[in-house]
């Protein structure tokens, strides 16, 4: 009896050692423990003592470190939560590299700004190419940090070059200038993804990039808020001394901050992962129900009242942002959800949010098609109809998989893999808007 207690104690210690690595969950250790106890029973049956049986069984199961890192490889999402490992980490968080690249980003944006004379004169090429001044630096930063192959550097270079040629050789109108200015940064974000993920075809790798994007946005918003407070106070403090120079100060500080923060936020995501990692699930848990309520109210309202005269480009943009936020909330919440868990109340809430989003999207599309029927296609309307159709298909697929999950027939991984396999559609549509639409509407 005493011996058994002794074994239990040893198993307890062994469990704790495994659980110290967050890639291994408690049920995983339960499973390993069941194996360990089977093995001990068998070894004892063969005449070994309690102690000997435990030692051999543990040894056969394998050393803790290689075993947990194998779990980490399979359960990427858990690894993601703990990329900054206790032993120094899989990803070194080099501060110097980040500072250099943040400075490069600042130099790039300021050079472009000075060349265009912004904000005194507004050259159309400056806004249209804004994405090129901001995001390739981030792609190079990840390329350097990840030590990507020559082949991938070539792919990156060619993609950016082709996009730059497309954005600048095609003649633009004021309308398509703005369209490209809006869509190009998002398209270039996918290019950053080429540098970020090792295997672009792997769903898990794409999901990592999606998670990175979510956390990057949170950090960027936090930095922007802080920067806003800083700039506001600077303005208030310095205006009495240099009443006429503030515009000049801001035109140096603001673009530098916007560009530099892109790299800093990316660095923070990896360096201080655990901070936002704990924050993000809480944020989605709070905001998913609130957004669900807001969406239901809005969907019901607009479905009954329709758009009427209120329908314009600004409102349309707001709707599209809302729909993208819904998709992002769902994806983010699903990705943080334990994939083995059965469907719960939060899945119902997500389903409600998605259904309401689908209704809203349909209302928007009906209004858009009415516009098109009345006035014909313009570049803006093509971009709007396309984006809303792309979102509609995405939402329909999402609700299908969430529905199956609720019916107990699907798994949450399906929602994830649906979203990751849909990413090229988003990228493709952005490419169409940047490179094809301006050709069609010269």
């Amino acid at each position, binding site marked *: 009896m005493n011996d058994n207690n002794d074994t239990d104690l040893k198993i307890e210690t062994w469990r704790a050692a495994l659980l110290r690595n967050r890639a291994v969950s408690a049920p995983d250790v339960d499973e390993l423990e069941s194996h360990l106890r089977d093995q001990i029973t068998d070894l004892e049956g063969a005449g070994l003592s309690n102690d000997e049986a435990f030692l051999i069984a543990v040894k056969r199961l394998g050393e803790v470190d290689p075993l947990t890192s194998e*779990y980490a490889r399979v359960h990427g999402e858990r690894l993601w939560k703990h990329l900054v490992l206790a032993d120094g980490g899989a990803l070194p968080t080099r501060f110097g590299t980040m500072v250099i690249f943040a400075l490069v980003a600042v130099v790039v944006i300021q050079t472009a700004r000075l060349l265009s004379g912004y904000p005194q004169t507004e050259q159309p090429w400056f806004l249209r190419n804004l994405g090129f001044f901001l995001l390739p630096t981030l792609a190079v930063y990840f390329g350097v940090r990840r030590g990507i192959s020559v082949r991938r550097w070539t792919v990156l270079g060619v993609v950016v070059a082709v996009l730059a040629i497309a954005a600048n050789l095609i003649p633009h109108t004021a309308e398509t200038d703005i369209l490209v200015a809006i869509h190009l940064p998002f398209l270039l974000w996918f290019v950053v993804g080429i540098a970020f993920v090792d295997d672009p075809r792997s769903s898990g790798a794409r999901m990592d990039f999606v998670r990175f994007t979510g956390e990057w946005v949170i950090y960027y918003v936090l930095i922007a808020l802080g920067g806003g407070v800083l700039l506001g106070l600077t303005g208030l403090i310095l205006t009495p001394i240099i009443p006429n120079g503030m515009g000049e100060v801001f035109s140096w500080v603001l673009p530098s901050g916007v560009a530099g923060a892109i790299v800093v936020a990316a660095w923070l995501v990896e360096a201080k992962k655990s901070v936002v990692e704990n924050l993000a699930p809480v944020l989605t848990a709070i905001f998913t129900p609130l957004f669900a309520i807001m969406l239901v109210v809005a969907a019901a309202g607009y479905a009954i009242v329709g758009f009427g005269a209120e329908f314009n480009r600004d409102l349309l943009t707001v709707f599209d942002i809302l729909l993208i936020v819904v998709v992002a909330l769902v994806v983010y919440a699903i990705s943080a959800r334990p994939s083995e868990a059965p469907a719960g109340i939060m899945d119902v809430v997500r389903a409600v949010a998605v259904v309401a989003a689908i209704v809203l999207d349909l209302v928007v599309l009906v209004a858009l098609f009415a516009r098109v029927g009345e006035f014909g296609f313009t570049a803006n309307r093509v971009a709007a109809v396309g984006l809303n159709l792309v979102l509609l298909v995405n939402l329909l697929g999402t609700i299908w998989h969430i529905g199956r999950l609720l019916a107990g027939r699907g798994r949450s991984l399906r929602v994830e893999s649906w979203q990751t396999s849909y990413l090229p559609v988003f990228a493709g549509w952005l490419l169409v808007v940047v490179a094809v639409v301006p050709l069609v509407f010269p």
Partner: protein
Amino acid sequence: MNVDKDLVAAMATPLVLAILADGSSYGYAILARVRELSDGELTWTDGMLYPLLHRLERLELVAAQWGVSEEGRRRKYYEITDDGRKQLAAQRRQWITATRTLRGAWGDPILSAGV
């Protein structure tokens, strides 16, 4: 004889799927079966089976369910899915091609015996 690590790793998936194709099982029993099938010549760090099983579960090639052993211990049972059977059939064809090619190259007497 020690089989090369990479080769063991490559064999692991079809081997586990094939064992599960005979009926649902759990980790400890799968490993016992591997030992039996290879006459103890295939060595494997026992624990590494579990991450592999989890990966197969993720790919929906196997399905898992918690159950209870005869001794009343909690135990996770794995069962092959239809996708798993398809995957097994595909892998089987590949391995047959691979072994046939190697045997041909080596002039293996087993081949001429028609086994």
